[in-house]
């Protein structure tokens, strides 16, 4: 039973560029959430997808966008990268019917913006 997978593991971009991060949820899960974790901080909620729609959004600008595919996998896109976007990006999956339960996190994508 595969857990949550994310790609790539590491990524280096320059300011102003655009980036796409990918996530495959745990088998059987239908809800995907994305979190940003700056160095030395706790994860911050970006947004959550269910049935291919964004259901909730945290306090992040429109430069952050996402998508969920029919197979429940998801992408996080960040446009016009800023130095402050450097962080570990975590994907978490769960079942909508147990939305208040535990989340399963992937290993993360480390994004460095130069």
């Amino acid at each position, binding site marked *: 039973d595969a857990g949550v997978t994310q790609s790539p593991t590491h990524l280096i971009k320059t300011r102003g560029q655009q980036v796409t991060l990918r996530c495959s949820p745990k088998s059987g899960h239908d809800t995907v959430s994305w979190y940003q974790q700056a160095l030395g901080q*706790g994860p911050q909620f970006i947004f959550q997808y269910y049935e291919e729609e964004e259901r909730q959004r945290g306090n992040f600008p429109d430069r952050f966008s996402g998508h969920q595919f029919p197979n429940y996998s998801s992408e996080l896109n960040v446009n016009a990268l800023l130095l402050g976007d450097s962080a570990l990006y975590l994907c978490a999956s*769960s079942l909508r019917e147990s939305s*208040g339960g535990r989340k399963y996190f992937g290993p993360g994508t480390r994004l460095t913006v130069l």
Partner: protein
Amino acid sequence: SQQGEEDPQALSIQEGENATMNCSYKTSINNLQWYRQNSGRGLVHLILIRSNEREKHSGRLRVTLDTSKKSSSLLITASRAADTASYFCATDPSTDSWGKLQFGAGTQVVVTP
């Protein structure tokens, strides 16, 4: 902004000792969860305690919840070097039906042999 605050920010103990960390939060919750993170990698779920529960155990872990004080504590007994990690509390706000988690800044625990 962070929902919770963990205390202490860092903790250094020897193997065999107990480690206690605390979490305070601001809003009403459905549940509170604790996660572990090793060296900036993914988060591993440790335990979930619901708002109507006061104490929960899982192996060497003991979690308490005091909703009147909006606080929780995590106790790790008989610590091992493998327990070295950052520990985060995360709350599921009661105003939310989608299970969005709000994390604290974490407690960094170092267990020396």
